């Protein structure tokens, strides 16, 4: 496309189908104890990739 460049064509709701296995890290513990950012985490579940 000429005017719009899409960076990621993942559709978030697709992850609903497999999501929620809960094996990933708790968010507050990943780096700092007062932040709650999940955008930077990655998923532990191989099947979803």
């Amino acid at each position: 496309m000429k005017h719009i460049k899409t960076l990621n064509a993942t559709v978030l709701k697709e992850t609903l189908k497999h999501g929620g296995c809960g094996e990933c890290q708790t968010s507050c513990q990943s780096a700092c104890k007062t932040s709650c950012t999940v955008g930077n985490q990655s998923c532990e579940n191989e099947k979803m990739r």
Partner: protein
Amino acid sequence: MIHQYKMQDMNIVMDINSGSIHVVDDMSYDLIHDLDVGASMEEAMNKLEAKYDKELLTQVGDEINKLMSEGLLFAKDDYEQVVVDFKNRSTVVKALCLHVAHDCNLACTYCFASEGEYHGDRDLMPFEVAKKAIDFLVAHSGNRRNLEIDFFGGEPLMNFEMVKETVHYARSLEQEKNKHFRFTLTTNGVLLNDDNTAFMNEHMHNVVLSVDGRKEIHDKMRPTPNGKGSYDLIMPKFKAFVEARGQKNYYVRGTFTHDNMDFSEDVLHLADEGFEQISVEPVVAPDEMNYAIKEEDLTYLKDQYEKLALAKMDYKESHKDFNFFHFMIDLSQGPCVAKRLAGCGSGIEYLAVTPTGDLYPCHQFVGIDEFLLGNVDQGITNTLKQDAFRGCNVYAKDACRKCWAKFYCSGGCSANSFNFHGDLLATYEIGCELEKKRVECAIYIKAKEMLVE
């Protein structure tokens, strides 16, 4: 839901519900804006004809229609269903924060644990308590295999023999119980030596090293009990530690306050000192403290984040790349929606354990009587309080439901909400404003990288 913003030379359009991110030209930016505020395609086009070439506008319209049909623009919100599930979510515990030492060898001004004491007495956790905590975790973790133990304080190295014993005990259960433990530890560095470094590098999945940045900043906020600064004491130790560890799975982690609002300088200082994994974040403190971040600081601080984003890209170009925790973002393989909506899990999946074995929703609630949930002998007894945490998720918070950053932020920190508004479902506005700016910067950096490739 659409969020669009301009940063430097770039127009970015985020389609929140699908999670897609688009970099667009001015024409598309304006057209999407008009559609978003309710215009029909025809109305929007007619309006923009005064400004843009009609033929090009038609092309843009076609591109937008295509993205909409693919579900990548103006996607619907299909997530309420997930939220219904949250209310019934099972009480599986997967992470514990062990307060192995309610004592500290520094006297940091902004410490929420008031020099490690947490509104209580100085105390070290005995192995008996840690062992019961591990047993409690294993017993309540259901089918979860990955379990986390965070050694926290005060200063956990003040009770390091006990930490070692606990690690060995947990490891001894892994095979039989089919569990995998990940240990993390946060330290101020004062007691780091070759012995404990070797142990940590073997067993700790992540280590957080507390340092605020430039010497004068660090020394002001992180003095030793006799009032001297601690920078010269800890910096050589941190460098040795990181070298032994091989620059992976650690963070140097600092706090900025109203007193060092030019915190991008502190981040760059840490990068210049050779650290590659850096996290520096705003202090959370009551308004009356003079070092608290105030609403009028926001414009300056947002500018600092943007400045830092540009500096980070420059550093990368000159091969001095570093990671800044809050700018890391995974656009393709990030967490699933359930994770993004669920928040930090405090009080449910994540609990803090005091030296005497009391259980609290997380380290920030430790010592506040009404949040005492139970103890390692009896487990959770205050289920009423726990239920208040079970309901915490993005869609339960009015402000978050309407917020474009919800899938990146996951609804903020319940402890902040409680501390500022006495309500677990409120939001801490200053934190939100900064969080949104960080997400914008993170996406900007990512977009730059991806478009160059």
